């Protein structure tokens, strides 16, 4: 059978960010694929060396539009540990609150994108409608829907008052019900099963071989979660479970992310219940003592790593960011090999790529 090549991207309805695929097909079957990156490279790591620690908070926030808060959280945690700054407990609670809201927002956004790519527009609209509840909460607190600018070195710049706390508790409880509905649709809808079951399956060995992290690893029964394994931001104080599944296919990743969103709501409600009084931030010095630090956190897509090196000035000597989705891209050619052309959208959406994070 003759082979032909189908180019997908860098601008394509399947992809929400610029990425290029060259799929080689034999009939309807994908036999080979080549991925090209670099369309959204902004040189953020180099740029960060030219800017002060304070300016870099806003620069690293723009690494990714979806997990912007967790980038600033990890960066601030690193700088604070170098500078020896202790963040007030209320500030840490609010940081965690934002991190979990961001996880819910990211997972719902991803569910909508997957459903849209599968041709299931009803779930796409429901998921994005429900995501607005989270975005409204974040906008109410920080003044921005996506770029929250909630973190500062030494704490956070946002605070919650009592009336906001009550309304947010009600909103999050209603969101929990809506997410349960979405889960029921995903679990019972036969069309959804037909498009996602036994497709893009990854084994635990493949996950370990490619160093894949986050929800994709947990959907293949690899139990890793930085929030539990290396607790930061007082995560050890909250009661939540790390969800794992054993199927390893796109369906498992979908249900796992929905369950994770529900766990995040649980953490948010605990934070709203037990928010301690006090200051939200302390003033930090502009100059950071010489040294180096590695800081890790659990972004919505998996483990995020920041390496920060200081030479004692008010600017970092080096910042290296390791984002969670690069290994997922590395395994994509293996995942695509042998599948039907119609399933490409399910597999590509299923790994939840963040090209802006990868390219930086």
């Amino acid at each position, binding site marked *: 059978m003759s082979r032909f090549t189908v180019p997908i991207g860098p601008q394509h309805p399947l992809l929400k960010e610029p990425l290029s695929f060259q799929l080689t097909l034999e009939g309807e079957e994908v036999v080979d694929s080549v991925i090209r990156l670099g369309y959204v490279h902004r040189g953020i790591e180099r740029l960060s060396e030219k*800017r*002060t620690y*304070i*300016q*870099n*908070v*806003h*620069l690293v*926030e723009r690494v990714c539009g979806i997990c912007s808060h967790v980038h600033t959280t990890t960066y601030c945690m690193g700088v604070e540990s170098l500078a020896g700054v202790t963040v007030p407990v209320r500030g840490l609670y609010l940081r965690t609150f934002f991190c979990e809201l961001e996880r819910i927002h990211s997972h719902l956004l991803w569910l909508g994108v997957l459903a849209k790519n599968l041709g299931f527009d*009803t779930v796409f609209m*429901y998921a994005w*409608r429900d995501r*607005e509840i989270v975005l409204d909460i974040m*906008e*109410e*607190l*920080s*003044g*921005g829907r996506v*770029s929250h*600018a909630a973190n*500062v070195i030494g704490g956070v*710049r*946002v605070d919650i008052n009592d009336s906001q706390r009550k309304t947010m508790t009600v909103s999050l409880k209603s969101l929990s019900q809506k997410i349960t*509905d979405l889960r*029921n*649709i995903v679990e*019972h*809808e*036969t*069309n959804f099963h037909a498009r996602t079951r036994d497709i893009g399956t990854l084994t635990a060995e493949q996950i370990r071989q490619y160093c894949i992290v986050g929800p994709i690893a947990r959907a293949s029964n690899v139990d890793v979660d930085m929030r539990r394994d290396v607790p930061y931001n007082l995560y050890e104080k909250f009661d939540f479970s790390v969800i794992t599944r054993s199927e390893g296919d796109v369906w498992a990743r979908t249900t796992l992310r929905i369950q994770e969103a529900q766990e995040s709501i649980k953490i948010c409600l605990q934070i709203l219940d037990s928010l301690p009084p006090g200051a939200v931030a302390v003033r930090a010095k502009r100059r950071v003592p010489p040294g180096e630090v590695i800081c890790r956190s659990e972004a919505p897509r998996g483990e995020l790593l920041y390496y920060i090196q200081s030479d004692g000035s008010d600017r970092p000597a080096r910042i290296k960011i390791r984002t969670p989705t690069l290994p997922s891209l590395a395994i994509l050619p293996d995942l695509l090999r042998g599948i039907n052309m119609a399933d490409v959208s399910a597999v590509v959406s299923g790994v939840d790529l963040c090209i802006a994070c990868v390219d930086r």
Partner: protein
Amino acid sequence: MAKKLSRIFLLSKLWAVFLEGPTTGGYPFEPLQLPSGFRGKVVMNAHLCNGCGLCVQDCPASALKIERFDKQHFRIVYNPARCAYCGQCEISCHRGAIHLTNDFNPAVQHIGNLIEVLVERGLPKG
């Protein structure tokens, strides 16, 4: 049978959404409800500013510029076209002179018309 059940489940949800009515807002035909902390256009309380320049130093987008004529005389110029609306100037200002307003729609015909002088003390020499 399972397929039939899944259809009924989704239909009940669709019906509930139909009864809820539209969830989208009517902007621009209706006013937009913005939260109190919305980060919009930067304004300055000129009499509180002492010209320390911290807002200019910390601005990550170089949207603020300070022009110094001598020790007492300076001018702070704001370019909303460069502004990232991050609110860092508000955090950096120790005197509470600068803050972000709810104004989100400063439309102009020429981008240069956006640039405005926030504080002016004295006139340039010569």
